[in-house]
């Protein structure tokens, strides 16, 4: 039996492989009809191969079998026996999905018959695709006059690449390189790197004519459209160029092959032996040598190492680390306080000196702690691409099934966010994308009628903005109908007519996030059943995020998600409100101003004030929280905002900034309005962390009414 731990490692690794596979497939698709990049094809092939080997090792035969079929198909593709087309890409995309589901089952120790059947069906599809359309043609290699002896040592893949190069009509060269035994590996890869931009290194063969005992010679078969002189000029000393083929392909009749100037023996099995002993993890050389034969240095290095030098860590352990750091931060502030009071102690000189010493050490500790904290935070960060790639695959499938014509536009996959946030994002984003496809985008006929481009666009765009990440899900579809939203909201009793009369366009649009709201009754196959936008919103709020909507009838809809970079440790502004301390996450704080009492105005009995020409609501936190208010002429106002919304929170006292570890409130208190969690201060006191997103939300919904006037 395999230990569960080992299995978990495998699942994690296999997932990574699949993610990479998915990514490469997308890139392949993005190339459109262009000839696939051999490097990319090889990378995909390798991924499938690794997965096959790994899963077989763990006795997951079903996975191994499907991966094997995929590998066969990719091999055929690589060798030019199959043509890259839409059905083939679909098949491979589905394979990745099914493999992911199977891995999921394997990790839970399940094995459902449904999935098994799906895998079998897919496997036979793949075999069919792999077998289809074998290319039968006159061998062009015969036509250009390449020494059969050389051809004899080529692998099928190399021959295929050679053929492709001949078909392109590029010149074929033999690059002879003699290097000293000491540094041949680095120099060989240098030459490879040099040649790569000018063409394709089809094969690297050990030469039959070693220079002397201290050196080793290689023949690189190289295809390039450049002139001979140009290539030669780029080559370093000790590397020479000669033609391999007699001529470039022309429609002339075949010529008898002429012996090559340097007769080549069958390839020595020197490195083949090494690669044969390599583990299943590295069945093929790493990217960078498209030839299918690795440069010697790579093989010997990679054979024993694992594929990546990354460490997989359970996020729970990072949380534990984070908590420890949080405690350390508390110790630090205590230490600083002690040092300060010792330093200021009057009378004796000794405590004073100690105090100074202590303070210096505390400062050093403080700096190291900051580094540690930043380091742990960095470790938690992962690119959004982890989720985006999965979504792109899903969209591809959904678009195909919907019969609509849609271009899926994606950017910002490299933006990094806390792992936990990224994980939690996949469901809300999937829901929004499905909505866009299902309800937003019109059918091609309808679009034509409206004079819109036939092909609709759905976008998933991310960017970082300060301490926040903004993700937009937009479509250029039908857009939302405000009057219809108003009707439905009234129908469902979500709002009163007086309320809707007062509402601005944006407020009306935001009604779609109310529980129990849906402008479409019929639940289609595509959109998630019974799950509405309110769930999306709740999910986001749990991540301290905010969602906003903008839509124009006929022009489309844009959902804007604003998320903090991390939830683990945040910098917060500590404030006092009638004797109680609260923490306001600094990522929501825009500025702090003081406002005179007589500068306050009211609009519809609601207090507002002005900051540099912008009027915004003035909210007395004490009043909202039902606490006794202090009478004052000048108010401290913390201007907070997320996305487009602004709000001034009147507080009594500013205590300064502090790094805090926010702890969620226990289950029973979840949903306490305006509070996202709690943190502890040095004296073990619990301090509430304000949920600015929720407070803004209440304001939009006109719910931020004072408890006691």
């Amino acid at each position: 039996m395999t230990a569960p731990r080992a299995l978990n490692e495998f699942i994690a690794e296999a997932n990574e492989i699949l993610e990479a596979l998915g990514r490469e497939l997308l890139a392949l698709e993005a190339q459109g009809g262009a000839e696939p990049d051999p490097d990319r094809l090889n990378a995909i092939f390798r991924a499938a191969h690794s997965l096959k080997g790994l899963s077989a090792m763990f006795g997951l035969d079903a996975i191994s079998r499907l991966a094997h079929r995929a590998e066969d198909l990719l091999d055929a593709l690589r060798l030019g026996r199959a043509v890259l087309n839409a059905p083939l890409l679909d098949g491979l995309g589905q394979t990745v999905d099914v493999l992911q589901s199977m891995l999921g089952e394997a990790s839970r120790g399940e094995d459902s018959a449904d999935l098994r059947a799906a895998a079998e069906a897919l496997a036979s599809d793949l075999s069919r695709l792999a077998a289809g359309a074998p290319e039968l043609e006159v061998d062009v290699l015969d036509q250009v006059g390449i020494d059969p002896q050389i051809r004899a040592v080529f692998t099928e893949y190399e021959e295929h690449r050679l053929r492709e190069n001949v078909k392109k009509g590029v010149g074929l060269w033999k690059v002879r390189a003699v290097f000293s035994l000491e540094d041949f590996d680095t120099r060989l890869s240098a030459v490879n790197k040099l040649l790569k931009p000018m063409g394709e290194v089809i094969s690297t063969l050990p030469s039959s004519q070693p220079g002397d005992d201290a050196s080793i010679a290689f023949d690189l078969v190289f295809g390039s459209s450049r002139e001979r002189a140009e290539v030669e000029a780029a080559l370093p000393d000790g590397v020479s160029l000669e033609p391999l083929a007699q001529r470039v392909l022309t429609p002339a009749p075949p010529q008898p092959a002429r012996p090559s100037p340097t007769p080549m023996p069958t390839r020595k099995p020197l490195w083949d032996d090494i690669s044969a002993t390599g583990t299943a993890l590295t069945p093929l050389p790493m990217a960078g040598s498209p030839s299918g034969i690795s440069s010697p240095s790579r093989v010997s290095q990679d054979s024993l190492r694992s594929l990546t030098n990354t460490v997989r860590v359970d996020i729970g352990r990072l949380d534990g680390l984070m908590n420890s750091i949080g405690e350390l931060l508390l110790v630090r502030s205590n230490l600083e306080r002690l040092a300060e009071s010792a330093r200021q102690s009057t009378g004796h000189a000794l405590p004073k000196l100690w105090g100074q010493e202590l303070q210096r050490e505390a400062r050093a500790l403080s700096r190291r702690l900051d580094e540690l904290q930043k380091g742990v935070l960095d470790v938690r960060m992962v690119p959004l691409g982890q989720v985006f790639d999965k979504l792109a695959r899903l969209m591809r499938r959904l678009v195909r099934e919907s019969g609509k014509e849609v271009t899926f536009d994606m950017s910002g996959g490299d933006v990094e966010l806390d792992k936990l946030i990224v994980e939690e994002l996949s469901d809300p984003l999937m829901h929004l994308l499905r909505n866009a496809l299902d309800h937003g985008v019109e059918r091609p006929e309808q679009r034509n009628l409206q004079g819109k481009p036939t092909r609709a666009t759905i976008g998933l765009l991310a960017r970082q903005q300060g301490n926040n990440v903004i993700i937009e899900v937009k479509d250029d579809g039908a857009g939302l109908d405000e009057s219809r939203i108003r009707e439905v909201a009234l129908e469902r009793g979500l709002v009163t007519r007086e309320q809707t009369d007062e509402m601005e366009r944006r407020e009306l649009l935001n009604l779609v996030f109310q529980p129990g709201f849906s402008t479409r009754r019929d639940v289609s196959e595509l959109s998630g059943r019974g799950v509405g936008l309110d769930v999306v919103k709740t999910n986001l709020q749990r991540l301290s995020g905010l969602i906003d909507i903008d839509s124009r009838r006929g022009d489309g809809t844009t959902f804007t998600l604003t998320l903090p970079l991390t939830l683990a440790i945040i910098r917060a502004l500590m404030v006092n409100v009638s004797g109680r301390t609260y923490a306001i996450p600094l990522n929501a704080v825009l500025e702090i101003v003081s406002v005179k009492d007589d500068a306050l105005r009211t609009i519809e009995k609601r207090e507002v004030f002005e900051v540099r020409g912008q009027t915004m609501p003035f909210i007395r936190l004490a009043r909202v929280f039902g606490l006794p208010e202090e009478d004052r002429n000048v108010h401290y106002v913390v201007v907070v905002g997320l996305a487009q919304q602004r709000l001034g929170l009147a507080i009594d006292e500013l205590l300064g900034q502090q790094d805090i570890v926010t702890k969620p409130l226990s289950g029973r208190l979840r949903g306490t309005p305006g509070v996202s969690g709690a943190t502890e201060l040095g004296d073990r006191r619990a301090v509430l962390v304000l949920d600015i997103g929720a407070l803004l939300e209440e304001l939009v919904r006109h719910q931020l009414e004072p408890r006691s006037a």
Partner: protein
Amino acid sequence: MSSRFAELLDRFFYRPDEDVGPFLADAPESDRDANAALEETPEEFLSFVLEGETYAVPIHAVREILKITVVTEIPRARRNVLGLINVRGEMLPLYDVKVRLRLAEQPPVVRAAADVPRSARILLLKDLEGDAGVLVDRVDGVVKLHLSKLEGTPELGVERNAIAGLARRGDDMFILLDVEQALA
């Protein structure tokens, strides 16, 4: 009578290995009802005092007993939530059950140890919905009660939803608290 003493006596007199239940079950003429009573092992409860009345909860539902330190009030929380307590880094709610049990009109304002009598404790109760603290006036101790001897609550016009039943032990009466309901 202190129930602590009762517990000591219990320990002294009660021997699980002397239980004759299994043998009786094999005897064909044995009375079924007597059987049930004899076979039942008493359950352990933690007894505590609220406004002079003695209450009890199953001991396995109690995570720990804490003294009151700092309680952070939670604005706009439900009325029976006294505030937030920090239990070694875990942020847990502290509940008042007296209002629910109609023992008091108003929940007390508790911010620090000075706001409550010295004998007051927090019972930290384990609960699926999330652990929660309950403020009690005094903790008496562990008592063994026979669940089969549970009485229903008499019709007195009191809040009965939060009470699971009554149990007697000698002259002492214990009101069994339904934790789920009491915190609702």
